[in-house]
């Protein structure tokens, strides 16, 4: 599985856009890029997934350059409730089963 590297922590003020970048230099052709959010005392929760270019949903956007060796999670206008740990992971997408491995995560602290 591809190893991921992301900043350990980030601070942001409420209302700002937050971009968290993840490096995955040895991503495989079949790997998808997925981001999860984890609040204290809860299990991780899926945010967004992409393979290339840009993906947007109701909570975030995911930007993936052509070489796919990195990706950026963009959270628009964060609020205090967005304070959490964000995990970037890459994994093989295949019919049958999916094995996901989490990196160290980025602890986002939103400041009032």
């Amino acid at each position, binding site marked *: 599985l591809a190893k991921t590297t992301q900043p350990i922590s980030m601070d942001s003020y409420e209302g700002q856009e937050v971009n968290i970048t993840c490096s995955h230099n040895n991503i495989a052709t079949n790997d998808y890029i997925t981001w999860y959010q984890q609040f204290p*005392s809860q299990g991780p929760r899926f945010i967004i997934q992409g393979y290339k270019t840009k993906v947007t949903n109701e909570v975030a956007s995911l930007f993936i350059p052509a070489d796919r060796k990195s990706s950026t999670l963009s959270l628009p206008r964060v609020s205090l409730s967005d304070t959490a740990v964000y995990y970037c992971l890459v994994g093989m997408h295949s019919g049958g*089963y999916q094995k996901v491995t*989490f990196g160290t995560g980025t602890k986002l602290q939103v400041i009032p």
Partner: protein
Amino acid sequence: DTAVSQTPKYLVTQMGNDKSIKCEQNLGHDTMYWYKQDSKKFLKIMFSYNNKELIINETVPNRFSPKSPDKAHLNLHINSLELGDSAVYFCASSQNTAEAFFGQGTRLTVV
């Protein structure tokens, strides 16, 4: 209605005991997992279990054994508990996508 539920939420036990954590998913998924999150918050996969095929992570001591009575359940049994087993254990499930659904976790404390 909780998609992935695990019991108990908290478990405090003495060294040397044997304990089990139960997990159930009502999503109809084929694949279930157990993860361990230690005090440093690293989240590491322990096992994945897909349609009766068990994939064992070789870094997991054989004191840990998953048991799946059916596709909707994957229980984790731990023998001879050690202090280092103290952690939060998460159960998860997925179906043919990279999106995994996680339970709320079981905080195991070995004293």
